[in-house]
């Protein structure tokens, strides 16, 4: 046996012992080759727990936007129902899920179930129950800011449920930092970035380009962490790595940010 074969056999044995789930679930390619290369199985792991954290308090919509994109990618590998769990007071603050916007993301609202709960601990209960159902593709829960129910044990339970049945769990934080270590398979941090300007006739100011975020993979079980500028391509319903600086407008100096040029 060559050393290469040895290595492969050894790797297989290690994966076997490391794996919690009895089954390996396929990875969902994000569509951006640069990122997929860094991820285990060349894509988003499914049947696993993802944590999505906003880079700042204002980035919740960006975080959710990236989450919806990831969800869309996962639906490619596993069709099924989607559960959204929102604590009622969070919805009051950040608005309600708007299905027409979701339909534009390629997520069919027919498959969407929206659950409003009063207590944070019920978010986790509902996610766990949903993940155990074979017809559920993904379950997304939004944690309120003052949440204390989500800890290592809770994340471990979610991760194991997801691994056993193949559904993917998303925990969307409303705070930039969870401040604790969890058993999540991947932890992402998302911040909004200025989109590429889209010049349209008759407008004296550029229009909005494709949504763009700074996506940071902070933690991953396997694979490599990294930071990427990511765009959502609404035509192919996939991510792409944004070309850096395609902007011809002169750099402006933003006084509030201590003289650093504003990102374009």
């Amino acid at each position, binding site marked *: 046996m060559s050393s290469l074969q040895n290595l492969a056999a050894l790797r297989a044995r290690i994966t076997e012992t490391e794996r919690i789930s009895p089954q390996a679930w396929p990875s969902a390619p994000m569509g951006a080759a640069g990122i997929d290369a860094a991820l285990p199985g060349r894509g988003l792991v499914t049947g696993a727990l993802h944590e999505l954290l906003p880079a700042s308090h*204002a980035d919740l*919509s*960006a975080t*959710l*936007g*990236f989450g*919806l994109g990831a969800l869309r990618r996962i639906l490619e590998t*596993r*069709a*099924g129902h989607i559960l959204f769990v929102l604590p009622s007071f969070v*919805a*009051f603050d*950040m*608005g*309600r*899920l*708007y*299905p*027409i*916007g979701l*339909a*534009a*993301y390629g997520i*069919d*609202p*027919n498959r*969407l*179930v*929206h*659950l*409003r*709960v*009063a207590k944070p601990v*019920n978010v986790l209960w*509902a996610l766990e*129950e949903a993940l155990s*159902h*074979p*017809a559920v593709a993904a379950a997304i829960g939004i944690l309120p800011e003052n949440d204390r129910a989500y800890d290592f044990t809770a994340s471990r339970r979610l991760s194991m449920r997801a691994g056993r049945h*193949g559904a993917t769990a998303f925990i969307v934080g409303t705070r930039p930092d969870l401040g604790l270590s969890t058993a999540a398979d991947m932890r992402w941090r998302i911040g*909004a*970035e*200025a*989109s590429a300007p889209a010049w*349209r006739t008759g*407008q*004296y*100011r*550029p*229009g*909005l380009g*494709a*949504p763009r*975020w700074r996506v940071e993979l902070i933690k991953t079980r396997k694979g490599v962490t990294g930071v990427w500028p990511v765009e*959502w391509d*609404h*035509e192919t319903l996939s991510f792409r790595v944004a070309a850096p600086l395609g902007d011809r407008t002169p750099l402006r100096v*933003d006084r509030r940010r201590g003289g650093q040029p*504003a*990102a374009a």
Partner: protein
Amino acid sequence: MGNLLPPDEGRPLVLSDNAQSGARITATNAAAEAQGLFTGMPVTDARAIFPALEVYPADSAGDVEALTRLALWGQRYSPFTRIEGEDGISLDITGCAHLFGGEEGLMDDLAQRLESFGLSARLAIAPTLGAAWAAARHAPSAHAIIATGEISEALAAFPVAALRLSEETVAALDKLGLKQIGLLIGKPRGALVARFGMLLVMRLDQALGQADESFNPLTPPPVYRADCRFAEPVTLLADIEATVKHLSRELAEALYKAGKGARRIELVLYRVDGWFEALELRTSALSRDARHLSRLICERLERIEERAGFGFEAATLAAFDVERGDAQQHGLDTGAPGEAEGDISELLDRFANRFGAASVTRFVPRQSYVPEKAVEALSVLEPIALQDWSAHARHLMDDTPLARPILLFGRPEPVDVIFETPDHPPTRFAWRRIAHRIVRADGPERIAPEWWSAAPGETRDYYRVEDEAGHRFWLYRQGFYERQGEPASWFIHGVFP
């Protein structure tokens, strides 16, 4: 009725209400009756007879409520129960008596229980409702049973008031010396009808069993129902759960045999002291799956132990909204990965059961351009057909990609704006006390309310804007600058990814 006041049977006590002609007695206790006081007597007269009389205001609404509750409790004997007037309850025990050891057995059981509740009751069992009504109120003994074929003999001695007649009719009969029912039986019907109207003859026929009488029960009786009675009162959650499982199996089997499923299930636990706990739950799809039903119920039983008191003595599980149809049957292939296309109604039922039906929703598109009216959230318990969302979204967004936000505020929030020219998007805006400088903007997209519901000032011009940090918002201006009397104001309605 009721035990708000400690019953001190030794002292005369009456209830009174305020009639037009002054306070009158509506109820008396035994001691008051012994003093010669009676229902309908003015309270002032009664006080003249017995100055130390205790008088309390009557609570007729409370009486009806308590009576209704007792009638519902009576469903442990038969599903057909109702209240009779202000002071009675009737049960249609056809086909039920054998469960309690015959009619005597049922009456003994009922009498014993009512007595233990602290209620004094007069009971009668008869082949017809009319005869039972009469016997319960006018029979010499408090517990009367009239057998088939003995009705006319038994009724003969009762006063005519026992026929459920109006006071005027009773008074008119009295004037003619027709004081007992026996005097009416066999009288020429034509004369009776001519003199006293149809009702008298009808009531007589109904009491004698010569005319049918419909019985409208308090609650529609379920067709499918499983019940059980405990030898000893049950208080432990585990025991109640075991009972629920047993009853669900029985009910599910009955539904399965009939090829039907139910959308609504009701569990009633009867407590020893006459109280009962009812628990209702709905399912999103027709169901006859014992495992699913018992699980749904057991998840709601959490606090039942606290309310058990001295224990529950009987339980019924009934199916409502029963329809013929292929109820989802899970059993053989539960949990198999091949079920991925399957439905999640069971899961939704459990969510609805735990968080309330209104908290678990699906969206349906609505034909409107107004953003908040273009979708509606409906409870998952309502049947919803598959919708063509992509057509709806395309129609609304008019080929502009991602022209609608992912989060929409329930109520648009006002923002302060700075703009260069009125018809262009603003250059800055402040929302929740944070200023944003707009560097990208698309719009306006004019959305007017439907012309038939329009107030002219409600036309909105929507702009998609992005600030320097890359946060994207949906702003709109309502009203116009150039028109008088319609001041323009700016709002934020949603956020983009």
